[in-house]
């Protein structure tokens, strides 16, 4: 496919049809950021799953992983507003 999008929720490059939620290339979020019903995960859901991914793939401390995930999400178009509302934990 000739288009290349970046998932607005997690930043993953989407290059294949299978990368897109529901295999729909009109969607702006990827298959990993989709709920079972095809809608996009919430900020909290994404923060939880991204933090868990960092811990699983690199074994980092949970708090460090959560901060890194939050920091990265703050720079993605989908979460700019939510991040400001989120406060700290």
């Amino acid at each position: 496919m000739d288009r290349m999008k970046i998932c607005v929720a997690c930043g993953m490059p989407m290059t294949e049809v299978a990368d897109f939620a529901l295999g729909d290339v009109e969607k702006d979020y990827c298959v990993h950021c989709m709920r079972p019903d095809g809608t996009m995960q919430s900020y909290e859901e994404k923060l939880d799953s991204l933090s868990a991914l960092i811990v699983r793939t690199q074994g980092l401390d949970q708090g460090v992983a959560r901060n890194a995930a939050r920091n990265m999400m703050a720079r993605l178009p989908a979460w700019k507003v939510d991040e400001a509302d989120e406060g700290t934990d």
Partner: protein
Amino acid sequence: MTKTRRQLQKEQTRKHLIETAFRQFAQHGFITVRTADIAQAAQVSHGTVFAHFATQEALFNAVIEEFGLRISRRLHELAVGNRGLREVLEAHLKGLREFEAFYTRWVVESRVLPDSTRDTFTIVQSTISFHISQAAEREMDAGEQIPIPVHLLFNTWIGLLHYYLANDDLFAPEGSVLERYGQELLEHFMRLIKAR
């Protein structure tokens, strides 16, 4: 949506600044390069750099994000093709070799970089580890590799690479560490995890 000429020009300047910063960091390191040096090398005014990147930290992050995007695109293409672990690690090595000077600077200086810069790199490494784990788990399930938790598999691999890169002056003072030792390290790693 068609972009205006001004928007296109803005994007091009940003790209040019990222490329220039990339080369400057690779050559001199993150800490010693000042934004003024980047402006000079890119042949733009110092103000232009700040118009695109409000802080030096923002520029660090933009450059690292670009590096991560390039590496993960390469790995992503491979991972969707159901390639073997060896091929994915070879692609990782190949990707790192393209940016070896830059990556080595990061390995050496990461502890003194701003937190957000380190966070950006953490995300990049998670993406890489995820792609490696997809291939590794298929081979673990097939009984070809010994079962190892993903984080230990990745950290063992990356620890090996980073040790050689951080001490490149001892291992390959006049050339590329990954060119000289990459294949040997890969063979060693594959032997370590092979099912007996």
